[in-house]
């Protein structure tokens, strides 16, 4: 028994619940029997992957759903053996090059080459190209991205690339220009609510639209999260009530906790404690940019407008540095220190005014 989120995933372009016009466009694209490289981007939980799988099914038929996992081995120029897990069907192969860290270039070059250099023998009734799906393209190293752009052109006859990214800001323009970029925006809250109700109906449960909306709000327009939360709600309490407590993800709670610590006291000692919390977040694999975003959201609650701008700009500054740097904790801490300094000054001034 899978979780709802996987159990009720649509498998056909026609069955997609939102962005239906986009689905239609994709369908027409595929029906032309050929399509360019795709760069699909959008926030997580918007249905990128689902959409791509539907597209492939449209393209090759149900054969693409016969998946298998393989471990592939590569050797880096420095003679280091690396292995990477791939998911593939007869018609496509999906890989997550960032799994191997800085050696992703080797994976991209070798994998795409081996796939692309082989033609389909039985091309009757089949497409003459295969599809390579690369996940998390925005996290690829620059080297890998550069390696990609030549192969994209060279093997265009035998293989199509579908690149998946959260944001294209870190994808080099050379790749962007070679692909048809498809943005999959996050579903609106209403869309999520309707999906939730649909799912509940399938599970033969009764979900009020109010609660569905509340869950959608909580889930931050992330359909995956919304579905998981909805299921968690069901586990917690069924039948649903109107004002039921929606379990928030632990890490969000943790970030909120951290932010309230910062607001409660501004001192070097407190900063030291906050550092431990930040470490904990990082250890648990929460992407540091999400930590930044979460903290900023919580911290600006108590600020006036001028200060809000100031804090936001600092958050942006340190997040930028974090991307350029090695150790996220340094930058998170610098941001907190800065905020503490500003906030304390602000408090003192306002106190001074009061007296």
């Amino acid at each position, binding site marked *: 028994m899978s979780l709802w989120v996987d159990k009720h995933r649509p498998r056909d372009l026609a069955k997609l619940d939102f962005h239906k016009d986009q689905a239609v466009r994709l369908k027409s694209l595929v029906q032309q029997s050929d399509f360019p490289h795709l760069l699909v981007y959008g926030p997580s*939980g918007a249905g990128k992957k689902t959409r791509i799988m539907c597209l492939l099914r449209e393209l090759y038929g149900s054969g693409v759903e016969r998946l298998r*996992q393989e471990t592939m081995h590569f050797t880096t120029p420095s003679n280091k053996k690396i292995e990477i897990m791939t998911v593939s069907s007869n018609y496509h192969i999906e890989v997550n090059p960032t799994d191997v860290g800085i050696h992703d270039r080797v994976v991209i070059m070798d994998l795409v080459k081996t796939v692309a250099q082989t033609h389909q023998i039985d091309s009757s009734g089949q497409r003459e190209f295969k599809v390579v799906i690369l996940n998390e393209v925005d996290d690829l190293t620059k080297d890998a991205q550069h390696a990609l752009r030549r192969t994209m052109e060279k093997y265009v006859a035998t293989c199509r690339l579908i690149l998946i990214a959260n944001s294209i800001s870190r994808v080099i323009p050379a790749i962007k220009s070679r692909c048809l970029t498809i943005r999959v925006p996050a579903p609106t809250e209403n869309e999520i609510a309707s999906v939730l109700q649909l799912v509940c109906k399938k599970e033969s449960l009764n979900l009020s639209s109010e609660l569905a909306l509340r869950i959608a709000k909580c889930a931050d327009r992330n359909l995956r999260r919304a579905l998981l939360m909805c299921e968690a709600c069901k586990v917690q309490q069924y039948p649903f009530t109107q004002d039921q407590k929606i379990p928030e993800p632990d890490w969000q709670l943790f970030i909120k906790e951290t932010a309230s610590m910062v607001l409660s006291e501004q001192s070097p000692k407190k900063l030291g404690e906050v550092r431990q919390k930040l470490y904990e977040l990082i250890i648990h*694999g929460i992407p540091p940019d999400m930590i930044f975003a979460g903290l900023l959201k919580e911290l600006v609650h108590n600020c006036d407008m001028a200060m809000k701008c100031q804090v936001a700009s600092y958050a942006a500054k340190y997040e930028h540095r974090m991307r350029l740097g*090695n150790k996220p904790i340094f*930058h998170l*801490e610098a941001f907190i220190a800065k905020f503490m300094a500003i906030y304390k000054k602000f408090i003192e001034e306002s106190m001074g005014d009061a007296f």
Partner: protein
Amino acid sequence: MSRDIRSFFLPKKSQKPKDEDDDIIPESPDVQIKNKKKEPRKKRVIHDSDDETNTKKTSLVSNKSPRNKSKPDLKEVKVVDLFGNAPIKRTEPLVKKSKKQTETGIHSDDEFEKSLLEIDSVAVGDKPEIKQFDGGNSESNHKDTTTLKTPKNKQKAKSPAKAVVTSAKQNYANKKEESKLNSKRKFSEFAEIEVHNEEDNIKRKKMDVSVCDNKTKVKQLSEDNDDADVSTFEDESSSKHKKKKVNTSLNESVLTDEERHERKMHSAALYQKYLHRSGPKHLGAKEMPEGSPDCLKNCAFLLTGVLDSFEREEIVEAINKYSGCVKNAISKKVTHVLAGEDAGPAKMSKALELGIKIISEDDFLQMIADSKNSKNKTSAKNDTNDDTNNKNHSNKSKKSPKDKSVDKSIIDIKKEKSPKEKHTNVTTVKEEKSSENVKVNAKNSNKSINSGEIKKDMKIDKKSIKTEKQDSESSNKNTTVISDVKREDQKPIHIVPASMWVEKYKPQNVKQIIGQHGDASNVKKLTNWLTKWYVNRKAKLPKPSPWAKNYDGGYYKAALLSGPPGVGKTTTVSLVCKELGFDMVEYNASDTRNKTLIKEQIGEMLTTKSLSAYAKGDVGKQAVTKKHVLVMDEVDGMAGNEDRGGLQELINLIKMTSVPIICMCNDRNSQKMRSLVNYCYDLRFNRPRVDQIKSAMMSICFKEGLKVAPDVLSQLIVAANQDVRQTLNLLSMWAVDPDLADTDRLRKDTKTVKKDIKLGPWEAVRKVFSAEDHKSMSIHDKSDLFFYDYSLAPLFVQENYLQVAPHCPKHEVLQRISKAADSISLGDLVDKRIRSAQAWSLLPTQAMYSSVIPGHELAGHVAGQIQFPGWLGKNSRAGKLHRLCQEIHAHTRLSTSGSKSSIFLDYCTHLRDAIVNPLIKDKSDGIAKSLEVLESYHLLREDLDSLVELSVWPGQRNPTILIDSKVKAAMTRTYNKTSSALPYAPGTIKRGSARDDQEAMDDEELSDQPEDSDPENDALIKKKKTKETEKSSSSKEKPGASKEKPSSSKGKASNKAKKK
């Protein structure tokens, strides 16, 4: 004999400066050295001489009588006759022998020995004179006046030392003629000490019974006049006497019990007083006067009580500065007791008992201040004194014109000393002695010229050598002697930059290696090992335990000498080999030592015979030797491409070698040496102690005429990390540049060198934030703190900057911290740049951002303990969780769509709950449900634990605790029973090990089929289905499919294993 005296000056002084203060009263040391050495010789001479009884008699008389009295006793004309040629001839060879023995025994300086031998050979030519002199010497001491009167005696004195002796005689005679006061005046420079000395000597004279001792004392006195620098040596016999005296004095003070008790009480009271005593009352009231350098030489101080205006440390420093020494306990070595308020009564009484001068603080300051003045005056004074001496002399001994000359030469000595500070005093003495000698010689032939020359000497000191030359030309007879003398004299004086000091003063035999004298020394061990090597090979010894102490290494075929550079490893080996007659085949880092080379070249070489002896002209069996030693120097340098496989081959070589192998390395604990050390006899060289190096260096400095204060030298040695070679190099640099040789600058230099002490990251980070240290640090010094360990420093700073209490207004603290944090974050950017682009030139920039700026912003002090950077631990933990997550992601990939971070953010909690909740709620009934979830996501049992680890946050309860342990066990059991097909290979099983045959696998698959209800999950079935199509359709996918099979079979294999 006479040469001995001279020659013993040098090395004795330089080699054993430590021993100098071995015994009691400091006198001018030259004398004492002479005493020691002369004793045996003199005895011989005395025995040989006909008038043994005679001398004894006189000596006895003289012993009993004070000086003035002894004089008339000594005046006997007889003795002159005794110095005839005949008896002296006999003694000559004896003298020579004894000389050689003592010298080689005591001196380890080869060069020196050589020169001695040369002189000896010359001396053989001059036999009669020497003999005569020997006799004369012995006699003259007893019967000064008589000897003075005998021109013969002196005329024959040709070798330099002879001259000294004669001069000594003269002085002694002078002294006798003069009153004590006179002598005091004469040696105003050392007035007090000398008075002491004289008194002591007189005292001793009384005690001494032996003739020779008596003689030596006379000489001591005379040498005191010479103002030689070599510090104190007591001749043994006299010291014994003294000790006896002390003992008796102690015995006398045996106390009754009551007295003892009283004394105890008293001392307790005193101790209380001592504990509560105050500091200096007028601290800083007086200024330490400037004295001339070395003005306190030969002075040993004992400080007691509280001084009026100086801290004890200041005084100690001052004394050390002026080359004095400070003693902790009272002994005869102490020359002055510097007493302050509440001086220890025990010390004072003892000082009185020993007749040690007790001085106050003011006296002490006066001593230093006077030294400056007196030094300037001494020469003049000496002149006048000596003039008067001369007069006296001329009055008394008009018969001998030589007296004059000798006296004048003494004046020369004094004169020269004061201006010529560069030369150590002893050298000048030497020089002068030789010049004296020359003069004496010259007088033999030509008196008139002589006087002129002496005048020249007086005028131009520096040309003394030249005048010597002239002398030598003028005196036909003694040219050889003089030239020898010259050679000897010149050697130490002029600085030869021709050869490096390191080479020049390389030890020539085993004994000269610094710090390798003891029985347990490495030299000894190595010698022992090498000599027994061939024997041990036949013996077949068992392998010793690695903890065995003092093992002689019999088992090992190779020795590994390890130790820091510059302690003499290579030297030791070469000398030991030389000594044992082994042929050294040396390979060092400059040779390529890779596998093939070692195997072919070296291996070959070791089986061949050496013909090196042929080259030396040996014939017969000795010429051909098989005694090789393979010396692999700097084995830790055997690395890299060049020497590939070298170490391994070396080990092989050691295993089958037929000759001893000696390896040398710096760090035996390094990774590279790991394998080698197991095959080698371990000899570890430690750094020699500072004083060991110091004494050797002093001797070299002395030979090179470089004047270095002892404390500066020891600082230098410490700064050079007790590296002998380094110290020598530094010294030779100083010697070349006279500006550098300025003592004060040397002091400063050594201080700057001292700074290069390695700091650990803890101390470094403390310094980074220390406002105190910042005051004295330049920006370079601050950034240097970063470079002690540039990889750890930024982490340390980041970890600890919050603990700093900055010295600033309180409201600024947060501002400053945020600035520091900002700088640290910038530092991280630089770090990334450095690491990713190998832009190491950016390190200084990083130093600024990561260390200097935060340190500057938060200058204060670190309030807490310095913590080790937590980042490292956190990072590795983050890495671990990432790995777990990646594994889960990989396992669930077929059924989920999210990326890795979606596992972290969304899935893990829900997945965990989906598995755990049924177990908690429904107990064993929920097992099926939770297993279903596991299966549908292709998760392993272990993944559940990973999930829990991922999803539990600090402060949260682990939900698995709520599961009944029985349920948990039951769940694990059922999980193991139900073998689910996995679409991937569980990571723990090695590839290729479980290659099941096709049928078994098919069976499994068939049995699995009904279980897999979800068509999406049964990847294996699909694969099986696709297999046929793959085979027909695409050749490309075959490898993938074939790969797939074993992997799935592995999954099953593992399951099977679990079932069992």
